[in-house]
Each structure stands twice: as C-alpha cells, then as structure tokens.
C-alpha cells in the first residue's frame, strides 16, 4: 500500500465512522515489526547462501590444493624417472618396478587433469555463489534504504494525522468558546426559561386567586371604604373642602 493511499485512508477514517476500526488497525499494525519480518527473511537467506559459499570456497581451496600438490608430486616423479632410466639400464631395478612407476605417473597425469577440471568447477560454483551473495547483500542494503524511507513516511503520516486531530480539536474548542460569548449561553438560556416559566406560573396563580375570590356588593365596598377613612381619622373625601383636605394632609405628614 502506498503512503498516499494510506494517508487517504487515515484521513478518511477521521470522518468515516467505519474508519474507527481502520485507525484501530493502524495502531495495531506496527510497520517496524512487519518490515523486520521481511528483513529477517532476507537476512536468513543471505546467511544460507553465505554458508553455501563458505562450503564452496572450502571445496575450491581443497581442489586447488590438490592441483598444487599433484603438480608438485608429478614434477618429482618426472625427476625420479630420469634416475630410474639409468637404474634400469644398469639393471639396478626391475623392468616391473619401472613400469609400475611409469604407470603411476600416467595415472597422476590423468588425476591432475581431473583435479584441474574439478578445481575449475568448484571455482565456478564458488564465484556464482559469491555473485548471488553480493546481489543479496545489495538487496538487503536497498531494502534497508527503502524501508527506512517508508517508515519515515509512515511516521510522517502518523504525525500528520495527529496534527489534524489536534487541529480539529482546537477548532471545536474555539467554536465552543465563540458561542459562549453570545447571549444564548445554555446556562443563561436555562435560567431565562426557568424565570419565564416562573412568571407564567405566577400570573396563572394570580388569575386563579382572583377568580376564586368572593365577590363584594357595591354597598359593602362603600362600607369598607368609609371604615378605612374613619380609621385614618379623616373625613370622607367627598365631604371635605380643598382647604380642609390640605390641612388634613399636612396634619398626616406631621404625624
């Protein structure tokens, strides 16, 4: 999965409700662990080839050593043969011994040719394994380069997601603060609502009280008014002159 599609999914996850599980999956998916598994597999393969290479090198060294040894011995045999020719002429050695030795040289020559061939084959195998080893080692280096970049990208993406989240949270906080500046604070609104409801209730109660109160006759009303006036020690309003009313008022103030 490319970094950008991963990013897309990450951001998608924020809006999408189903994205929740994706974010969860991302948290569970550790790219370092996942790439380490791949790297280990590659490293193991390198180890395997390196072992084969070491064995092939040992094989080649042995074959090459055989060639050197065989060549050295063959040279010695040829030098010996010169002496033996003289010994045979002087009849110091038997023809059979000479023939045996001669046959031995021929056998050694044949063996040497074979050893040379085997050494060449061993070298080819060794060189090929060496090439494979070099390629695999290069692959591991490339892998490390690519994965470290990919890991950096993923980290970058993750931090971007974090940043976006923070940004979104800040935005939400800011808009909350802004709405708090207006008149319609929830708390105030609630209080107003309570107050309004209380006012209605009070009005209603007043109305109910008035309706349920006992109605007074006109005469009773007059009687009550007269009693109130008498109680105040003042004449009834309608029977007093203006001067009398002023004097009465002045007397009330003084008192």
């Amino acid at each position, binding site marked *: 999965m490319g970094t950008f599609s991963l990013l897309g999914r990450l951001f998608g996850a924020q809006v999408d409700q189903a994205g929740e599980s994706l974010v969860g999956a991302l948290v569970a998916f550790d790219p370092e662990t996942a790439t380490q598994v791949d790297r280990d597999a590659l490293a193991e393969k390198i180890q395997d080839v390196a072992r084969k290479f070491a064995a092939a090198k040992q094989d080649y060294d042995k074959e090459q050593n055989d060639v050197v040894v065989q060549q050295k011995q063959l040279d010695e045999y040829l030098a*010996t043969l010169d002496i*033996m020719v003289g010994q045979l002429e002087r009849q110091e050695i038997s023809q059979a011994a000479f023939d*045996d030795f001669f046959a031995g040289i021929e056998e050694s020559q044949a063996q040497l040719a074979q050893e040379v061939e085997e050494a060449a084959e061993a070298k080819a195998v060794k060189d090929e394994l060496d090439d494979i080893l070099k390629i695999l080692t290069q692959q591991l280096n490339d892998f490390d380069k690519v994965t470290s970049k990919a890991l950096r990208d993923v980290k970058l993406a993750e931090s971007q997601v974090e940043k976006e989240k923070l940004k979104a949270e800040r935005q939400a906080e800011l808009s909350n603060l802004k709405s708090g500046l207006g008149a319609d604070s929830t708390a105030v609104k609630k209080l107003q609502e309570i107050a309004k409801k209380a006012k209605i209730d009070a009005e209603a109660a007043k109305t109910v009280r008035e309706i349920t109160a006992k109605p007074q006759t006109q005469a009773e009303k007059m009687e009550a008014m007269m009693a109130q006036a008498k109680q105040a020690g003042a004449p009834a309003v309608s029977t007093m002159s203006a001067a009398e009313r002023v004097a009465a008022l002045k007397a009330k103030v003084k008192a």
Partner: protein
Amino acid sequence: MNIFSYFSKLFASESTAQDAHLPLKINFNSTVTFEINPILSAMTHGAMIDVLLDNLKVLSVKSISSIKIEGMDNKKIYRFYFNKEGDRKRLFLQVMSDSNNVDNIDEILFCSSVTEPPVGEEDILFFLGDNESGLGEASYSFSREDLYTFLSRAEVDKRLGDADGVEYTRVEPEQDFMPAFSGEETVIFDAYGTTGESRRVMNLMPHSRALTDTLFEELLVAFWVTTSKNGNEITIEDQLPLAEYIFAIKLERINIKVI
C-alpha cells in the same frame, strides 16, 4: 574426548567399537592402498624407508593407536599399524590431526621402523637425552655400518651411493639441545579395544633430511616402554624399553585410498 578409552571399556565390559571416527576414516575393516610413486620416488632419491612396494597395494590394519603428547593438547597423533604385533620391523601410517577434529589433518607420514633394545646404561642415558646429550641434539646420524643393521647391504649401497652415512637434522638446529617430546600411546588390537597395550613414550624426536630441493625424508627417534598389556600392569622389572628408528615419507591424502 578420548576415543581410545581402552581401559575404561575393558573394565566396563561394554562392546562399543573404538575404531570409529578416525582420521582418513580408517578402521580395522579398512583395506588401505598407497600410491607407490611418492615412496618409490623418495627411495630412488636415497630415502632409508624400508618397504616392499608390491605390499603397498593391499594393506590391512592390524592395530590402531593414539598418542597424546604432553603439553600438546590441541593435537593428537594416530597410528595405523600394518605389521604383526611384536615384529621388529614395523610399518605404519602416522596421522597428526586436531584433537577435536580428526578431519583437520596436519601431517600424514608413511613410516617404516626398526626397534632395538638399548645396550647398557649408556645407551639408556643417550635415548633419555640425559645431561643434554644424545637424543635432543641438533642432528642424528647413521653410519653405513649402522644402516647395514636395518637394511640389506645392497639396499644401503644403492641408496647411500658414495656417502659415508646419513645425517638428519632436528628443527631449530641452531639450538644445541632440545628436550624431546614425551607422551602416552594407547594401542588397541581389535575394534572393541578388548585387547591392547599402554606404552609410555619417554622420548620422541623428529628430524628431517633433504633428498632433493623439494623432497624430504623424516626420521623420528623414539624411546618407549610397554607399561600394561590387556589391562594388566607390567611391573617395572619386566618393562623392556625399546629404541625405535622411524624412517618416514610425507604423503598427501590423494596418495592414499581407503576401502
């Protein structure tokens, strides 16, 4: 691990083959064939090794031994004897390898030897390298007369030519004296180690002589005694020390076929 646990096996009466995992994969069932050319080549150049070349084509192992040299724990010497036990002349292959890896071979020597008891106390002191003289000196020589006791006159004359004798040089010949090696040789006569011998190697000293610029003959002089046989200790009085002259040619693995 010592695979020649001959004594312990003997007393535990276990029957485990003791000749497995030996250098060159040789055991008591092996038939060993040697290329005659390196040996004949050395003999033609005057080597004193004594062997009938026709016999080299089919050799069977009569006894096997391992030698532990004191102070040399990382190496072990193995010997495959082709002669009958008790023969004065011995024929064997000596292989030195890593103690813990018999496939890592340092040296293969094809050896023929002659044993003889020391004559008198002077001889014993000589082979013991007593007082920094005798075995352990910078060189070891044989006169023509000495050689006549090992080989037929005709063979000696052919190999010696006009020379009076042969001289073999020890390693680091600039040192006047060098104490010889000592150790323990454990021999088994059968695959299960039910019969065998323990030998105390009082002295063992390698020397060498150039036959050509590139070809060398080795001489190992040994002084040893059998200390026990088939698990029975031999009392000191009955122990017979032997001097042994081992003439050897270095072989390569490719010169040896083991079937």
